[in-house]
């Protein structure tokens, strides 16, 4: 969208939104927030960029393709859960350290699990929406797009 206001705002908002999404993720264990909503916020940040500059540039901005972000998220979540069985705990049991790099944020396997949730959610949303945005425009879509009501002679008799 060719609007100077939007472009200027995006430049300033993108890093802020991403930062906010990370804050939401990290504070989630004690305050409202967490990986899921953090991931959604992170995805929204990138989608703002997409609205401004288009899906192709947005894809280039991403450090990894969306599908790779999903894969990374699943792996992080999985490995955070695999640590416990090594110490004789049940799978996915939370293990905590007393290390607290940021006040209020303790390091433990549930934190890594939440990071996995964050990445998976963000990747899935980005993947879906970027695919939709890069879908061929108008024409073909209008006739062959999602059927939200029967077309003539398609399953429904009454017209």
């Amino acid at each position, binding site marked *: 969208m060719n609007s100077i206001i939007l472009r200027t705002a995006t430049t300033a908002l993108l890093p802020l939104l991403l930062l906010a999404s990370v804050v939401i993720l990290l504070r989630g264990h004690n305050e409202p927030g967490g990986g899921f909503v953090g991931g959604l916020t992170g995805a929204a940040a990138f989608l703002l960029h997409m609205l401004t500059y*288009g899906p192709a540039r947005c894809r280039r901005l991403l450090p990894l393709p*969306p599908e790779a972000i*999903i894969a990374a998220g699943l792996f992080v979540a999985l490995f955070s859960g695999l640590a416990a069985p090594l110490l004789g705990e049940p799978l996915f049991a*939370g293990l905590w350290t007393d290390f607290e790099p940021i006040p209020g944020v*303790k390091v433990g396997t549930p934190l890594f699990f939440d990071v996995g949730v964050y990445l998976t959610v963000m990747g899935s949303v980005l*993947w879906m929406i970027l*695919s939709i945005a890069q879908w061929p425009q108008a024409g073909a879509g*209008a006739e062959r797009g999602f059927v939200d009501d029967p077309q003539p002679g398609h*399953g429904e008799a*009454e017209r």
Partner: protein
Amino acid sequence: MVLPLSVISLLALAALSPWLVRAAGRYAGWMAAAVPAGWFVWFASQIGAIAAGGVLAPDPVPWVESLGITLAFRLDGLSLLFALLVTGVGAAICIYASGYLGGHARFGRFMAALLTFMAAMLGLVIADDLILLFVFWELTSITSFLLIGFYREKEAARLAAMRALVITGAGGLALLAGLILLGLEAGTFRVSELLTMGDQITQSPRYLPILALILLGCFTKSAQLPFHFWLPGAMEAPAPVSAYLHSSTMVKAGVFLLARLTPVLGGTPEWTWTLKVVGGTTMVYGAVLAARSTKMKRILAWTTVSALGTMVMLLGLGVPGDAAAMTFLLAHALYKGTLFMVAGAVEHRTGEKDVERLGGLARRMPITAAAALLGALSLAGVPPLFGYTGKYLLKGGLEQSPWDSALLVAVTITGVGMMTAALLVAVRPFFGPRVGGEGGGGGVGGGVGGGKPASRTGEAGPGLLVGPAILATLGVLAGVAPGLFADPIVLGATDAVTGLPGDAELSSLHLFSASALVGPTGIALLGGVVLYVFRDRFRRSTAVLDRLGPLEGPALFDRGLAGVLALGRGQTRLLQHGSLTGYVRTCVVGLLVIGGSLLIGRLGTATLLPPHEAIRPVEAILVGLMASSAVAAAVFRHRLGSVAALGVVGLCAALIFLLFGAPDVAMTQFAIETLTVLILVLVFHHLPQFRVYTSRLRRAGDLVLSLAFGAFMTVMVLLAVDTGFGEPISAFFSEQSVAGGKGRNIVNVIIVDFRATDTFGELFVLALAGMGVATLLIARRQRSGAGTEPGDEVVP
């Protein structure tokens, strides 16, 4: 622990074989052969101890302890016979595959599948646990699917592979049920413990279902009528596969299991008669079709069907038959392996499959011809080859069993067919005149006509010769000097089958007795020569068999498969009509019917309006706003308006979450609402025109449905509030959140700690949903032909 190592080492070799092929190229097969050959030597070193009645049974490793399933292996005489075949013939096949397929682009994949099959087959024969045995059984079905369909670019190969998989897979399911029933009835899954429980099993009321299910599994695997048809079809496989799977291993798995379970299930009239009738019929049918065929591998495939029938029939005869069955089995593996490899070599060198178009190859391929001749003589049962010993004992078994003249006639007919088949595969292509145009001709030498010169004349390479030469030599040795190795192996196996030690009557003493050549054997051999001479007339006069086509297995199978697919298409058209409103309607109606019927029963007992706190004004306003927006979304005549109204509903819901102390849920709801609007904006141009598509009546119906659904949900929520849940779990969570989960946000602690495994599953669902959306859109983009990368200006 050496025994299970044999299976593990073969599996490891299979995993490494693609790299082995990359490194060693076409000689990878020679190198890979070292492993099965090594195990062959090890198994051979056990012959003495096992034949003396010993058993090798390493300590079992527990597997599924709660069900009493163990990783137990055991080597007795029967296992040893099969283990020797699997590793010995397996080593020969590895070398042969190098010569036959060495240059193929997918040779690495082939070796991996072949070695996995070998490991599965070996595991199958040394497993001492019914479930473990079944796992290996299924593994042989799956790997043989890969091997039969190796030429995946050929439709016939794919079809043959699928037929084999469906038939043996269906039999496998029956077998699984049978084995579980058997295990439950006996109270153990250990084969070695079952072997002593024969009386208990055969007396039990579950004996018949157990027998029927297990026989179904064995008959499908061992290609008995009427499940035989996948075996000749499987000749689409490369020759090494035919030589290995369809002569000496896979199809014998059924025979193996029958033999293995003879002490458990055998001896009853049901067992005896089923095996005799099914086996006997298969035996004759296979022999007749073998004599009628003209393609070399197909002739051999039909003789395999016939031989499998023979073995099944012999196992049905009881003790005297068991010895014959084991001898016959060893003989068959030796000669059939030889002949299939010869057939592959001939096809490889000449490119011709039809024996009637080949001739005079003996001069060009003398070693191949010699191997073929030895194999064929054994196939025909000509003394002194080992095949003759098998045939001889076969008749001995018949004579010792209650006299059964019908079976004797059947065996004689089979002998005639086998002799003809032997002449067809070993004499016609190698010693027949180098003529033999279309349709062959009468007379021993075949007809006259334009001969097909061998396209690549000359002897096959060493890779194609080593295997058949070794097996053919072994066949001769076993016949001439049975004491060398054949007797101890077969005796050990027979003891294991009969459960009676040391009935050493097997001797080859009678081998050259004068009566051998007269009687049935002589008739069979002579008849075979006669039939060979008049084979054209025979083919014509039995042409009625060709017209059985529509009644034959493949046709029935294809019709059944087509029926299943048609059923699937029909119900898909009925349910997956592609109309989104239709889907919503189906879901709503379904929920109403199921949920409503549950609700009605409860309505009487529940109070619909339990005591509650006073409704705050802000709540009333929010609810009113939500309700009016929902109505507005339904009646607006502008899409944008409807979308906005839906957004209001969502935001109000988020506010309600906030009001009732669920800030997490509210936050998420806000984010979701934002993204939903974004998606709607993006797909706006793709949506069809926003106008009324449905009739007034249909809309009225939908209105009724919507109101009913709303009422249903309301009642359900009210009832849910009223229902006592016992002690709510929320108290536990609030208590444990800080203590156990080290977090004050209970929702988050539940998600990432208490219920982390659930969340992990949901993450996968989410990833799959994303993948689904993306791939659907990509597929549609490619189908609509707009393959170009959409530009950046796509977004409005």
